[in-house]
């Protein structure tokens, strides 16, 4: 018998083009990264949801390798109330700001396979 394999479920859904997360049937919390038990209430009934992909940059750091272009590492708070580490593309690394509204997309060619990345949302709101 096979049990739940949340990481496999996550990567399958990501590869299909969505930003998946879990929602707890017990306390209604959003749960990320994927788990087999809710870290807020201990319930084991976690259902999958698809994020609308809109979020706000919570923090950002630009890494400047000696031999490559600088890139931002960000934490994004999704509107569904979960946070992920990611990066923001299509904008100079130093232009990424805390409070910036961003939209998720899938980068199929990440260093460890498909990954979620963000682009600035055009109708940027003041933070």
């Amino acid at each position, binding site marked *: 018998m096979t049990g739940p394999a949340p*990481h496999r479920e996550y990567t399958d859904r990501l590869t299909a083009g969505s930003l998946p997360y879990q929602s707890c049937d017990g306390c209604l919390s959003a749960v*990320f*990264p994927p788990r087999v038990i809710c870290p807020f209430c201990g319930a084991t009934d976690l259902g999958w949801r698809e994020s609308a992909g809109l979020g706000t940059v*919570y*923090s*950002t*750091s*630009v*890494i*400047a390798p000696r031999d490559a272009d600088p*890139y931002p*590492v*960000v*934490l994004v708070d999704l509107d569904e109330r979960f*946070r*992920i*580490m*990611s*990066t923001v593309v299509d904008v100079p690394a*130093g232009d990424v700001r*805390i*409070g910036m509204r961003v939209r998720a997309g899938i980068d199929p060619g*990440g*260093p*460890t*396979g498909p*990954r979620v990345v963000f682009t600035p949302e055009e109708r940027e709101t003041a933070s």
Partner: protein
Amino acid sequence: MTLPDLRGSTAIVGVAESDLGEVGPDRYAIELAAQAAGAALAEAGLTTRDVDGLFCAIAGRGMAPLDVAEYLGIRPRYTDGTMVGGSSFISHLHHAALAITTGACDVALITYGSTARSDSGRGRLAMGPPELPSYEAAYRPRPPITGYALATARHMHQYGTTRTHLAEVAVAARKWAALNPKAFVRDPLTIEDVLAARMVSSPLTTLDCCLVTDGGGAVVVTGADRARDLPKPPVYLLGAGEAHWHRAISQMPDLTVTAATESSVRAYTMAGVGPQDVDVVQLYDAFTINTILFLEDLGFCAKGEGGDFVSGGRIAPGGDLPVNTNGGGLSYCHPGMYGIFPLIEATRQIRGEAGDRQRPGVTIALAHGNGGQLSSQVTAVLGGGDSL
């Protein structure tokens, strides 16, 4: 069942460093741990034969207590290999006090060693892979600095903390290091030097980061009654507290508030003291933001005021609150994990053995350890005989 009253029931009776700095490719972490252990036991008037409780953690070695026990010829009846990153050793002190107070052991040896600096030439020593797939690795953060950089950026955004505030921390550490013959870097450092240093993971530069050195340390602990018969004046454990809320930085609920807010309250409550009673602070300064965050979370200033608090040399030699009087991880030594060295320096300050960097009349010292990426927080309050 209630826990035993730990306040003053155990004491540190011996502390020592191993060789520090750069020991070269022919020496091993366990040798440094053993060298420090031998020196700490000698200072305590004890030998490896007296040790029946062993506490140790070495990065990348899952069975470090077995390695160390075999090497030293110790057959412990109580062993604790708790590995919560750089906070492990202050956690070990807490656990040793619990074990001694309940009779599980009589003489506890806490020991650590690392050849992190010399290892860089023989391939990087990793902490070992996480058990679960990483949800961060795809974005190529530079662990651990990027986690601290994200916390720094958030602290600046919320509270107006500046890079000059961060630089004040680095400069204060260097001024203390100049007074410590064992410190790895002792040449003068200015605010401008820090501001002009190469950016690694913004807003942190190379000079906002701790050193990478070799080194080890050891601490010997026993019951208060036995401690009073040993050569050194006992340094009593008055209170200890632990807390951790996350491991990955993306799981830290608020990047400006650490679990030190809980660990410190637990330690102060047990000790019956508050921050206003603390004469010297030794805290884990892996990055300059640590000092600012921890001074806030340990209660020395309000949340968000850490930058102003460290300004004007307040934590430097001659300032109101001596912090990291050995020079800290920023300028004294940082061999992979730093957490045993705050205990060693706190002990020396209470004994009055800190030489040119001694604060006169130290009765109460606080030692604080940090592990992971602002993850595990462990606080200990130590005191001399006058504190009981």
